[in-house]
């Protein structure tokens, strides 16, 4: 709450007020020396980042961290997760409390220009409204006068206003500092609608609704957002490592490599796959990693399709279609960059 935010801000001030400390050593060296990767995570959005019944962190964003941990430390469990609220997350990254921030973070110009660097999108989605089916509303145009539960610390605050102005809806926002409080207020009937990323809405519906089928989710805007893990400004090598660790999972899917079959390709004749797997050296060394980093990521975490299906797709309670998150050749936006 405020107290926490104030403390965070105080910590920001305190951290910035001390003489430059971590700038001389690179994030890669820091992580290697520590032997652990520290990742910012959500405070509990199953499917994207939340501890399971045994306290083991699972989710699409969580696996992004695991992939980086495999690339750098060769251990997908050498990660510490720091749950952060919407407002805490960016200062936490800027001050060096965490090494990377994969937390359903929308790539926006203001954030990019203001002290953090975005790597490569790991999830595309629209901002959505969730409403009870009983209200009979399935599109934004019919929402006139609806009250909307909004959580602060997200881009959706601006979206709810833009949508309301554009369609002359006079939406009545009820803004919550606390994610859980906002969601509970929605289910108690305080608001007609809940607005946030569609994936998070699916997660809320799957985990909090008495009967998930009673709720409908529809897009709030015609635009897509690119949810993108971010790193601190000013460490280009680390930016590259995180970017290419995520890319490794997408490229593996494009190549048809999975955690199951990857060993069969180690003697492949395809030069592109040989470079990808590090059979032909060069890629890993360029990043300051071992040459087989992509092989190890796919082997222990999986390709993008495996990660997607397991966390948010058809093998998970969220049951989200691949949609725009399919590969480019299946009509999606996921596009592997060249591993050479």
């Amino acid at each position, binding site marked *: 709450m405020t107290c926490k935010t*104030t403390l965070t801000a105080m910590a*920001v001030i305190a951290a910035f*007020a001390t003489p430059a400390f971590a700038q001389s050593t690179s994030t890669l060296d820091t992580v290697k020396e520590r032997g652990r990767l520290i990742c910012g995570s959500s405070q509990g959005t199953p499917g994207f980042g939340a501890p399971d019944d045994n306290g083991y962190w699972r989710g699409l964003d969580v696996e992004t961290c695991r992939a980086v941990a495999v690339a750098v430390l060769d251990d997908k469990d050498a990660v510490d997760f720091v749950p952060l609220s919407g407002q805490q997350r960016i200062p936490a990254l800027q001050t060096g409390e965490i090494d990377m921030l994969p937390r359903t973070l929308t790539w926006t110009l203001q954030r990019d220009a203001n002290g953090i660097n975005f790597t490569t999108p790991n999830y595309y989605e629209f901002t959505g409204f969730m409403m009870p089916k009983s209200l009979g509303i399935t599109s934004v145009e019919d929402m006139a006068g609806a009250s909307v539960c909004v959580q602060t610390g997200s881009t959706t605050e601006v979206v709810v206003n833009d949508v309301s102005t554009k369609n002359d809806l006079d939406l009545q*926002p009820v*803004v919550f500092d606390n994610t859980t409080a906002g969601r509970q*207020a929605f289910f108690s009937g305080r608001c007609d609608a809940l607005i946030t990323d569609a994936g998070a809405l699916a997660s809320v519906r799957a985990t909090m609704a008495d009967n998930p089928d009673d709720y409908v989710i529809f897009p709030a805007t015609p635009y897509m957002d690119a949810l993108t893990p971010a790193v601190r400004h000013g460490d280009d090598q680390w930016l590259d490592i995180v970017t290419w660790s995520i890319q490794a999972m997408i490229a593996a899917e494009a190549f048809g490599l999975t955690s199951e079959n990857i060993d069969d390709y180690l003697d492949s004749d395809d030069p592109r796959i040989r470079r990808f797997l590090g059979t032909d050296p060069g890629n890993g060394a360029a990043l300051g990693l071992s040459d087989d980093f992509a092989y190890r990521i796919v082997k222990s975490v999986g390709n993008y399709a495996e990660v997607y299906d397991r966390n948010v797709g058809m093998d998970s309670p969220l049951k989200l279609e691949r949609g725009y998150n399919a590969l480019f050749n299946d009509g999606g936006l996921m596009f592997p960059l060249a591993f050479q």
Partner: protein
Amino acid sequence: MQIALLGGLVLFVWWLAGNTHENLTERGIRTGFDYLWRPARFPISESILRYDASDSFFWAYVVGLANTLWLSFLSILFATLLGLVVGLSRRSAHPLLSRFAGTYVTVLRNVPLIVQLLFWYAIATSLFPVPREALNPLPGVFLSIRGVYAPALTLGPGASMLLIVAAILLVIAIVAGFKLSAGKRLSVKAASVGLSVCLWVAVVVGLSGMLGHPVGLEAPALKGLNFRGGMVLSPEFASIITGLTIYTSAFIGEIIRGGIDAVEKGQWEGGRALGLSERHIMFRIILPQALRIIVPPMTSQYLSTVKNTTLAVAVGYPELGLVVNTVINQTGQAIESILIMLAVFLSISLSVSAFMNWYNARVALVVR
């Protein structure tokens, strides 16, 4: 020595500011206050000042501040009144009343405020039905989970003049009613005042007719998903004001009881010897003396109340803290925003403290 200390402090602050600036620049983080004039673009769910998302960040701060002040003012006012009742009840000779007040104070002082706020919010959002099945206890008044909706005054042309004239006439009517029946019995007084108020109503209605009835009542009505029109008491505001008032009243009750107990027993005995009634002794002799003792601790209680309003974020009421949180997230300018919040709360607290000190000086015993 003191000059050296002061110099050291200035150097230290200079060093901090320099480091901060250097580190921020190095990490490519924007600084400065020019963002204040850009459009805020985020919504504020309720405000006593007019706010539109196209207004600037600066105005958003002002709106948040106005909400904070309004909340502080109302909760201090209500808590003081309720606290007086609690404090007097605790001193009551009636065991049931004093025990009840004692329990009230003990329970409320020992449960954290945030828990109480969430409790009141849970009640506010589970007690009442959805808008379509809203309770309608009085014509035009609706109780639902979205809050309490009541008819609001609508003001047409000439309305402000009518209201001002009506207010002045009302004062004249009441004063005249008392003057005419001066020295008469209470029942005669009441009848006289009642008569002049009736006369006032007739005059005001006539005057309103001459202006074409500029003041009207607009009743809320269910349109689409929600009630529109009228005025509304939102569950967020209701729960924060209830929580703060009740919590603070327990502390104020104790301060008042303590103040009264601290007045010498001889004052009571003197009053009784003069044949004054208990109530007269309390309000004419004891309370004025107790005030001197009450004011200083009351000042710090009022300051805490102002600071406690920041807990309203927990139940979604947009006071300054919530607005600052949002601005930090939208702009990333955490340091500037927190500095503004520090400055604002410092000024509010210093003003409250200055006012209470002035009041304290007024009621303090004048020693010649």
